[in-house]
């Protein structure tokens, strides 16, 4: 499936996003900075999917929202079809935004419960001032996501979880985007329902050729859907490359630990395989460890890891990883 010669649609370069936290600690007012995303770069190719994985708080959502300019990055470039979105005026951005959409875990949270689903799906068309027959377009979109035309007249509460996600997808597709950021789009669904929505993403991509940034903490879903995978830890990409390279031959110790922690639905494998147990939790992004951010939980860490930050380096198996002592 992976076409390494495909054109690049999106290039993120040296993306940084700091959040300022104001906390009142007694007499002193302190200002702390959360480095949610700390110098992240990646490309997304036309018609392909980049999977973004990592534990909660690693910065996945912040990357996704920065790509769409829903939040303003502290620094770095977001180059979409050759143009840097971070340097655009509001008016210019409005035009590009048509081409980029985002779908959340529960898109219904952002839908008006008093509006029919048809009107909600047509809303982006109205907002962007798109002409033509919206009713036909809505029917076409409903069909595309596996719902029936009658669903247009119904209200959000009449839909099940899986159907809701389909409505959210239909709405995201209304303006024929070239890129969709999917932020944990199936995490709230039962696996029996999730499978259908995951298939839908694949089918839509085949048919319409858009690219996805697929954010998920479920590594097996990402393995199924992605072409490339980026593994984030504390605001950094620690490993990135073709899915098969990363999953078959994880190079960064964190990737290896993460993969070994995922419970597999097979008692024989689960009871016989060697598991890497990481100690402790992810440190606070307010005060990340010096050098390699993973070193406080890494079984391979040495003095070097504390003093020198490892850079992403291409490995023999093809992917890049940022570790002084790769696997």
């Amino acid at each position: 499936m992976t076409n390494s010669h495909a054109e690049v649609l999106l290039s993120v370069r040296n993306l940084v996003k700091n959040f300022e936290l104001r906390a009142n600690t007694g007499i002193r007012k302190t200002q702390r900075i959360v480095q949610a995303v700390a110098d992240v770069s990646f490309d997304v190719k036309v018609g392909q999917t980049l999977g973004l994985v990592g534990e909660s708080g690693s910065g996945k959502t912040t990357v996704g929202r920065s790509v769409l300019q829903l939040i303003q990055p502290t620094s770095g470039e977001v180059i979409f079809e050759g143009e840097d979105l971070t340097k655009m005026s509001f008016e210019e951005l409005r035009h590009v935004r048509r081409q980029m959409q985002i779908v959340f875990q529960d898109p219904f949270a952002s839908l008006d419960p008093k509006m029919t689903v048809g009107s909600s799906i047509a809303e982006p068309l109205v907002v962007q001032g798109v002409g033509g027959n919206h009713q036909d377009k809505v029917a076409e979109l409903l069909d595309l996501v596996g719902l029936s035309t009658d669903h247009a007249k119904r209200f959000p509460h009449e839909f099940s979880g899986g159907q809701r996600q389909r409505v959210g997808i239909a709405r995201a597709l209304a303006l024929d985007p070239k890129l969709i950021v999917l932020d944990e789009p199936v995490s709230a669904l039962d696996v029996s329902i999730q499978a259908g929505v995951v298939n839908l993403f694949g089918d839509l991509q085949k048919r319409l050729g858009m690219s996805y940034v697929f954010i998920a903490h479920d590594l097996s879903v990402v393995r199924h859907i992605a072409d490339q995978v980026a593994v984030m830890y504390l605001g950094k990409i620690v490993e990135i490359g073709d899915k098969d390279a990363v999953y078959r031959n994880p190079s960064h110790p964190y990737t290896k630990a993460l993969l070994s922690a995922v419970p597999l639905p097979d008692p024989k494998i689960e009871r016989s395989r060697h598991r890497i147990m990481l100690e402790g939790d992810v440190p606070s992004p307010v005060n990340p460890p010096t050098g390699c951010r993973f070193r406080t939980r890494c079984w391979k860490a040495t003095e070097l890891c504390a003093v020198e930050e490892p850079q992403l380096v291409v490995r023999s198996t093809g992917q890049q990883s940022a570790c002084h002592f790769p696997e």
Partner: protein
Amino acid sequence: MSDSILQIRDLRVTFSTQMGELRAVRGVDVDVAPGEILGVVGESGSGKSVSFLAAMGLLPQSATITGSVKLDGIELIGAKKKAIRSVRGRSLAMVFQDPLSALNPVHRVGDQIVEMIQSHQDMNTHDAEKRAVELLEIVGIPQPNDRARQYPHEFSGGMRQRVVIAMAIANNPKVLIADEPTTALDVTVQAQILEVIQRVQQTFGTAVVLITHDLGVIARVADSVNVMYAGRNVESGPVQSIFDHPSHPYTRGLLSSLPHEGADRLQPIAGFPPNMLAPPSGCGFAPRCEFAIDACNAELPTLQPFDDLQTSCIRAVDLRIGGRS
């Protein structure tokens, strides 16, 4: 099984709601042997939590509960409030997805464990404090002496869940019910917590009921499995058999809907779970089942022995020809 430490028979829970009677649990049997880990898995809304909240006596007034729940032979349904209170937290303890719900934010965690011990045992404060530190050590909290003096907000999510487990095992319960204890945690922390639960089971011989929607978690730690759907237990048996040759189309569907290496497309189960205000009169899974025949809708099927499993599918024998899923 008469040697069950926890035995549930024909448990039914109905909630009266504004929209009518919601039949959350519709006749569930559970047997937990001493020291075993029973995994309970199923679609969300299938009645997993409600079944065991009923067993714990933790449901609101709006719930009507019938059936029998016996802990070590003692009936809990219909028992006096005082009797239930002496069992809950002592012989039967429960941990939840959100550890904060079980912790008091303004008390030190050590004091909370001490209180838990002293509400069920006659132990002086000095000994109880020593025991609290010991418990924190058992669940893998570093520097337990210092940590005992800290407040819940000073702990990370994973460490809080350990504290809650320490509280739950404070009185050496016979059965520990863990309801999605790792669902809110990251996988690397989940692995740690599952290890703690296994350690508790191995060290103290505590029986564990582990409720989860994750078949991977079941595969890792459960000895036997109950699969729930629409307020019923649709299949149960030893963990290996459930994964190797599931008899119920729902279990099969669940297993084949998971992503696996090399699959081009995933296999969802069509449709969605029934509305429990008006559940199907026959097999609860029939509306989504590709093998359903008229007889499936005729009456509510009950668990029947099938190989080394118990299954509620009336077509289990016909479908066996299909073999492994």
